[in-house]
């Protein structure tokens, strides 16, 4: 029973990372209409920058998280302005942006390989909260609890931001129709920049935390997060932050339980079977609403 609960918490923490990453990915997809193949590299680069802040500059872990988050956000801004803005101004649609994002994925992945010298780096164990806390008879990692808390805070924060504030209203308006939003007095360019930054920062946060939690700082970090975060977005519905969060946690818990009680080999199989079931049975995700488009 104790093992069961411990594993449930481990899965929750793992799933929180997927969800945190997925929120950023879904934000770009729903607001900017871009299927961003380069999104995983934001997480990789945030983790790499965070690692060098700890390892070379000797600064404490919270600073590394802050710098990593800022790096993820700024990288997302730069990619948006270089790769997506020229196409946006020509109304080239989703397709062109997908290809430029693939180009940036190739570039940033390969540069990340150089930055880590093609190795997998790890945060020194003493640099981040890696100890265990006793909750009753259970032993839970501090970092796991931090990750779980971070996801809850971010989900609530971003959900409120999108649903309750003027900025969020503007973001949804731009996601619906950029021109119409601009006619309604929304500064579309500003909203796009802020969305890109927010998405990059969220995924960067997932990257730094995942880098510490899995002791893997390299370009493969972002790829792993991307595949699972993407599954969370599809299961949860890309236009709702809550759905992504719940789906991500669910995927993490299932993954850990399957590995623990069934077989490690079938871990991904279960995740993607769930994905397939959702695609066929409930294609708009957990919280998905019926969309309406001009006939």
């Amino acid at each position: 029973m104790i093992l069961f609960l411990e594993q449930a918490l481990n899965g929750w923490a793992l799933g929180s990372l997927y969800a945190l990453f997925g929120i950023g990915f879904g934000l770009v997809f729903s607001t900017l209409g871009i299927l961003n193949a380069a999104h995983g590299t934001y997480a990789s680069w945030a983790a790499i920058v965070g690692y060098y802040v700890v390892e070379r500059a000797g600064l404490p872990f919270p600073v590394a998280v802050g710098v990593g988050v800022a790096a993820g956000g700024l990288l997302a801004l730069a990619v948006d302005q270089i790769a997506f803005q020229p196409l946006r101004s020509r109304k080239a649609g989703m397709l062109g942006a997908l290809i430029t994002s693939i180009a940036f994925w190739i570039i940033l992945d390969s540069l990340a390989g150089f930055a880590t010298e093609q190795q997998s780096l790890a945060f020194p164990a003493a640099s981040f909260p890696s100890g265990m806390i006793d909750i009753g008879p259970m032993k839970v990692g501090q970092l796991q609890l931090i990750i779980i808390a971070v996801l809850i805070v971010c989900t609530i924060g971003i959900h409120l931001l999108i649903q309750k504030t003027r900025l969020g209203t503007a973001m949804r308006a731009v996601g619906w129709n950029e021109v119409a939003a601009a006619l309604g007095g929304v500064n579309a360019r500003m909203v796009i920049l802020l969305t890109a930054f927010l998405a990059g920062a969220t995924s960067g946060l997932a990257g730094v935390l995942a880098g510490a939690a899995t002791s893997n700082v390299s370009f493969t970090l972002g790829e792993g997060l991307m595949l699972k975060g993407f599954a969370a977005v599809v299961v949860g519905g890309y236009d709702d932050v809550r759905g992504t969060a719940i789906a991500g946690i669910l995927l993490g818990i299932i993954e850990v339980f399957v590995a623990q009680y069934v077989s490690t080999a079938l871990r991904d199989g279960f995740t993607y079977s769930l994905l397939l079931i959702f695609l066929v049975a409930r294609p708009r995700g957990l919280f998905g609403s019926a969309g309406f488009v001009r006939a």
Partner: protein
Amino acid sequence: METLLDLWAAYGSTIAFAMVNALFALSTYAVLSTGVLSFTTVVFAAVGGFLAAQSVAHLGIGLWPAFALAGIGGAVAGSVVAAAFLKLDSHWMALASLALVLITRVTVLNTPLLTGGVNGLVVPMSVPMGDLVILLALVAAVFWRLHRSWYGLAARAVREDAAVASTMGIPPRGIQFTAFVISGAVGGIGGAALAFTLQFISPETYFIGMAFTMIASTVLGGSFHWFGPIVGAAVFTALPVTMQSVLPAIEDVAKGVVLLVIMIFLPRGLVDPRAVGLRRAARRRVSAEEGTDV
């Protein structure tokens, strides 16, 4: 002549891969030309590839029957995917098809009886370059014929505006379903061609990397004319080889930058019938004005 033979020896495999990638790009173009962004060509390729590899190994059939079988298998897969996914709108379609690519790899990994599982499958047959050329020419001829047919016209109408197309009596779903069947057949044949070119296939062969390669080839070449994907596949396949000889240290970065620059300056791709038409019209206008001046 001698240099030509040297070139052939050095770049023969690149040319073979360019032709295989052209088949994949054409398969992607088939659905893209009806306004659907889908990555499912990878799925069709996997179906075709494993089907061809197994039937050659166990049924002892020849090269061309294997291609035909792969095409049929791909077409069946295409119709299944279309029946399940066409009800989704465009954003969801893109996500769902990408998810299906991930699922395909897991399926391939967990059915070792059919696919060899993690260890992959050795393909006991190779495709001569001449046959590959004939295959690509045949497929291209089909696309050329389709482009000039009622179906091609209807597909372009559906892509531009499905609502307007349906008011003119074109069934958008029907056209897109047909497009998926065509995409499936061509993708399956491409998958078989890849299997016979590599002579070894594994779960990693038909995965995300391939999905992005073929969509990039298609859009790079131009997704408004069937010739675009063929050009795009050639450029995209040759790019890493060229970059390796120019900038060996950062070939991947250079490849990404070239892709980025082309897409920013030519967002409609290298082959763009509209640009050709506009240029022709401008030239006609200029000559007409000169005519009136005189």
